């Protein structure tokens, strides 16, 4: 019965969402308070209904109810409980249900915490949010019903793809969805503002936390996925420029641009129409990402052909949402007049350049991702666009971004003098170039990646230091005056510092790992050793074992340096019988300066084992940097100006918000 309750709740939610899409819009147009207030109650009811449906589906997964098609296809009675729970969203239908649940949750949050918003704006925002909900609830109910029953109940399920049975990946999709759907909120605010024809600082103050939240979640989601790929795929790759990865990376780039441009709207009341456009584009790319992933159109033409309804449905949503919002934008954007001007050299200009670089790099990723489709349609020839292309075309924009970051971050608003801003930065610049040069002379072999990466990373991090020192009153400020100044900085300032420093650390990790990685590939008999990068690796043994739903060969590899044992690694080769799929579990020892990474292959006919070993310098810095960026975003989000009700407070701030 529970599944029918879930199904019924979804149908009700669709009806509620349809009403929520229409009634508040009319109310806001006519100025009828009762009709506008309907949005609040509808948003909450809709959330309760969808959350109920989600709970029913989760219950079916936990109790292994194989009468449900989706449970049978994606679960197994012997699966560990964590993966039964995460299996709820580890499939198309369930993940879509999670998608609409988060959508409804955010709508409800506007109803709960949006009391300070003007009534008409709140009503319109919730109506737009409901329109998105209607589209996706219909998609769910008509093409991907998670509660479909099977005529014949099988004895057991077909299990979840073993690659997904991993803690890192169990929580990767929910974070990404929080990010994608968070951008639906900024989209709804943007459309509501276009309908009203008004954008002001209070609007920006409401939109920025959503943009920030979406960006934080995307950062965490992407980092989790990349970290998972690093340890799970067995060769330490962490980014592949795969269409599915790009699908999540494009909204990340645009939400990063959006959260910066919203600062300008809030502080300076300019860049309004651009910010609205970014909000529309950021959500559009979330939809495009959903389309790419759901239709499989880029990954396999056949997946699209075997089930065209889903692809076409998402394509329809895409056209209506993007086409409609851009049309509205074209009609109304003129009304968004700036009330202030800024000089060519100013914080505003710096942020415009940040936006241009992020948006263009997003365009590069988009064109590269879609090119195989475009080229085949135009020339009839099949081409591939892989990592070598993206590395060449994308990287320069990121280098430029890192170069302008410390300067832009310190420029004053409205009108600035470059010479004055650069004064505390010259020393930092010299130090970074010197470090880059040092790296260049130390390394043998000609790759420029390491020196350039090291110099850029140092420049970004020292730029943060220079900014903080200046805010504390300069290098010569006494601790007695510097300390209260730093302590008095708003959290958003600290958030900015930590997030920017995180980017520097991320850049250093990427450059170091890519440039200085060392590898060894060989077959090894038990008891044999080899040397790599100053370490001695010894294969002590390989033991067969059993997990809850897999069999495994686990090796014991001892790593020594100068005679002392540094690490004992246990790489595994697993086999999941239900899905007939092997997986590798790498043996990794992480240290701040390097990872030791060993991956076990198959046993050879002569009894030896294939083994892949790497020294991966600074690998952790990549995820630590991403983590710092998310923490910085979180600090900024917790700034008191964004707390409940803050939108109404109109006090002037002494320190510009970041």
């Amino acid at each position, binding site marked *: 019965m529970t599944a029918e309750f879930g199904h019924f709740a979804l149908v009700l939610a669709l009806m509620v969402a349809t009403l929520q899409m229409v009634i508040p819009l009319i109310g806001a147009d006519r100025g009828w308070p009762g009709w506008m207030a309907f949005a609040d109650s509808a948003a909450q009811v809709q959330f309760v209904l969808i959350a109920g449906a989600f709970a029913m589906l989760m219950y079916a997964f936990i109790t292994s109810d194989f009468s449900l098609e989706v449970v049978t296809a994606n679960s197994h009675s012997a699966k560990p409980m964590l993966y039964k729970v995460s299996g709820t969203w580890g499939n*198309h239908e369930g993940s879509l249900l999670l998608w609409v649940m988060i959508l409804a949750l955010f709508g409800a949050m506007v109803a709960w915490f949006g009391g300070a918003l003007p009534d008409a704006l709140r009503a319109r925002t919730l109506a737009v949010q409901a329109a998105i909900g209607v589209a996706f609830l219909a998609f769910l109910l008509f093409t991907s019903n998670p509660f479909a029953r099977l005529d014949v109940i099988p004895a057991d399920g077909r299990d979840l793809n073993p690659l997904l049975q991993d803690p890192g990946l169990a929580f990767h999709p929910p974070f990404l969805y929080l990010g994608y759907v968070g951008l639906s909120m900024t989209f709804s605010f943007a459309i509501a503002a276009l309908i009203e024809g008004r954008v002001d600082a209070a609007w920006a103050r409401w939109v920025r936390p959503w943009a920030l939240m979406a960006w934080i979640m995307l950062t965490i989601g992407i980092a989790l996925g990349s970290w998972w790929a690093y340890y799970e795929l067995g060769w330490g790759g962490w980014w*592949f420029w795969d269409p*599915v*990865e790009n699908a999540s990376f494009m909204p990340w780039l645009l939400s990063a641009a959006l959260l910066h441009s919203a600062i300008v709207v809030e502080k300076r009341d300019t860049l309004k129409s651009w910010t609205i456009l970014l909000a529309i584009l950021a959500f559009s790319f979330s939809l495009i990402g959903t389309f790419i992933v759901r239709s499989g159109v880029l990954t*396999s033409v056949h997946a699209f052909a075997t089930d065209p309804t889903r692809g076409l449905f998402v394509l329809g949503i895409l056209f209506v949402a993007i086409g409609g919002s851009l049309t509205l934008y074209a009609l109304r954007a003129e009304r968004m007049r700036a009330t202030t001007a800024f000089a060519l050299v100013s914080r505003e200009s710096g942020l415009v350049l940040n936006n241009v670089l992020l948006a263009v790099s997003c365009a590069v990723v988009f064109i590269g991702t879609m090119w195989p489709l475009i080229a085949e349609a135009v020339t009839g020839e099949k081409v*591939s666009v892989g990592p070598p292309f993206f590395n060449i075309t994308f990287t320069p924009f990121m280098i430029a971004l890192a170069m302008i970051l410390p300067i832009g971050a310190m420029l004053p608003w409205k009108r600035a003098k470059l010479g004055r801003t650069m004064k505390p930065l010259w020393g930092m610049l010299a130090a970074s170039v010197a470090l880059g040069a040092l790296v260049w002379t130390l390394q043998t072999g000609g790759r420029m990646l390491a020196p350039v990466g090291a110099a850029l990373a140092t420049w970004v991090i020292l730029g943060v230091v220079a900014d903080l020192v200046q805010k504390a009153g300069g290098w010569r400020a006494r601790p007695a005056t510097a300390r209260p100044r730093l302590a008095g900085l708003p959290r958003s300032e600290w958030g900015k510092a930590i997030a920017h420093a995180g980017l520097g650390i991320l850049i250093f990790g990427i450059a170091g790992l890519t440039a200085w990685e060392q590898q060894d590939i060989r077959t090894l008999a038990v008891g044999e050793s080899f040397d790599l990068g100053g370490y001695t690796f010894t294969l002590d043994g390989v033991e067969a074992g059993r997990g809850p739903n897999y069999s495994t060969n686990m090796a014991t590899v001892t790593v020594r340096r100068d005679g002392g044992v540094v690490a004992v690694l246990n790489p595994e080769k697993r086999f999941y019988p239900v899905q007939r799929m092997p997986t590798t579990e790498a043996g990794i020892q992480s240290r701040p300066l390097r990872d030791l990474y060993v991956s076990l292959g198959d046993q050879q006919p002569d009894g030896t084992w294939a083994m892949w070993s790497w020294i991966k310098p600074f690998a952790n810095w990549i995820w630590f940097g991403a983590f710092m960026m998310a923490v910085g975003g979180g600090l900024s989000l917790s700034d008191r100006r964004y707390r409940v009700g803050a939108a109404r407070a109109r006090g002037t701030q002494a320190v510009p918000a970041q």
Partner: protein
Amino acid sequence: MRVLVILLALFWPLSAQAVQPDEMLSDPVLEARAQSLDHELRCVLCRSESIASSNADWAADARVIVRELLSDGASDQQVKDFFVARYGDYVLMKPRVSGANIALWLAGPVLFLLVLLALVLRARRRGVATADPLSAEELAEVERLTRD
């Protein structure tokens, strides 16, 4: 099956450890060249993987062919040409800078320059750069106030 395809599409390529020990060349210089070539050739039966990261049989065969050609003295370009002759441009992970692909390669830089140009033109038209300049006395006052 449909669900499986979608699941696979949801996440990353199912790669294993790339080149197998028994495929490798004994000459480290030649093997290094082979491995960098592996990254530039697509496994044509796979989702979007190079032969460097795919453990499909086709990719394994392709890796062996790359190494045979290199051992016979072929240049990197000759190895790529060998695969292009059989599988078309589809096999190249880095599209050639020719024909329609020129648009792909130039899209980023051209877009960037166009946006910059548009911004500069807009700033000029509106006279933003010189908007509301301060008088000499005001400038002196600003100097005085901002001096630490």
